[in-house]
């Protein structure tokens, strides 16, 4: 796939991000020592189920695409984290629905075991690195989010990604049967199902859960 299409995809998602409906801000502690803030950032990454599911789906898709895929796209995920901090500082609205859309794309891609070109996977890794950060930091100005929190958040997101990808890759390397791949694809389908339900709850009962 040409880089023109990739740029169009990234551009479309950024436009969606800017058009997303506003919602109330997330609250997290912004005072305390570096370590406390780092842990607070970890907590924000680990305890937000919609973000955990999104990053898990991305990790699953990456390894189903290529067993060493994480190494190939991780840099772009990290760059996405950085971009997310900058985008959130621009005052964008809540990107929750963009995150659900991306989670569906990743989980459906994993369930269908689609083989995307490397450039698409890098683009997806970048966006999946950025959107969760924006989802947590939106409605906060850059100056009011301490560096410790941002580092903790990025560490937490990367830990979830690495754990998901590492676990899937490990099973591929140590359990060399076809059904292992199928089982992971089934789990991709579960992630789609969970996301559809969460999306329905969000639409029916705003801010439930």
């Amino acid at each position: 796939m040409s880089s023109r299409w990739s740029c169009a995809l990234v551009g479309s998602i950024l436009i969606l991000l800017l058009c997303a409906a506003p919602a109330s801000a997330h609250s997290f502690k912004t005072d305390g020592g570096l370590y406390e803030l780092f842990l607070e950032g970890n907590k924000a990454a680990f305890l937000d189920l919609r973000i955990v599911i999104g990053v898990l789906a991305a990790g699953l898709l990456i390894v189903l695409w290529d067993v060493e895929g994480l190494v190939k796209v991780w840099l772009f995920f990290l760059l996405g984290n950085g971009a997310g901090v900058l985008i959130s500082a621009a005052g964008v609205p809540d990107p929750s629905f963009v995150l659900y859309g991306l989670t569906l794309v990743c989980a459906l891609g994993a369930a269908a075991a689609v083989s995307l070109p490397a450039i698409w996977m890098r683009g997806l890794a970048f966006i999946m690195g950025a959107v969760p950060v924006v989802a947590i930091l939106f409605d906060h100005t850059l100056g009011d989010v301490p560096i410790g929190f941002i580092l903790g958040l990025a560490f937490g997101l990367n830990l979830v990604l690495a754990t998901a990808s590492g676990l899937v890759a490990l099973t591929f390397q140590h359990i060399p049967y076809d059904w292992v791949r199928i089982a992971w694809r089934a789990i991709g389908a579960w992630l789609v199902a969970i996301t559809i339900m969460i999306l329905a709850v969000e639409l029916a009962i705003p801010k439930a859960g």
Partner: protein
Amino acid sequence: MLKMLPCIELRYSSLWVAAVFAVLLVSLGEPALAHSGEGHSGGFISGFLHPIFGWDHVVAMVAVGLWGAVLGSPAIWILPIVFPLVMAFGAALGILGVPIPFIEVGIALSGLVLGLLVAFLIKAPMAAAAVLVGAFAIFHGHAHGTELPQAVSAYTYGVGFVIATGLLHAAGILLGTLMGSQVGRYVVRGSGALIALVGAAFLMGFA
């Protein structure tokens, strides 16, 4: 049929029989009522137990796995993927308050029809099987979505409910692996007949 599952061969049949019975025994356990079940853990537990403690749901979901095993590859993995996907769509309709008629009839019918398909080892084209299973999944999903408890976390409820459904399919697939032996084949067909009976009992209002 079981080329997809090379580790599951007749030499392991006793182990698999034990595993299947263990899963069935676990599913027969009484619910613990000591905790109030609010918040994230309550949401997960509530969602997880919802399909497991409704026998009309249990038999149909086990039957999906069983029928997949009867049909062989690729149905053995496609049906358990189709079911949760379409079920989530049905759940979304239920959560959003979109009405679907004859939900209880559809759920009972799913047990009866899928049970008969297993009992008579009926083969169907992949597309037809997926459409049939998907159609039944909408009824099950709608029921779960409509009954979504307000007191618990909706997110974790969804996680628990999808995982429980997947595990019930896995129980059916495990039971279906017994098809490799003559005795196992009788066990599978008998299970199908039992599922059909349970479905018929719900359909006629006996359960």
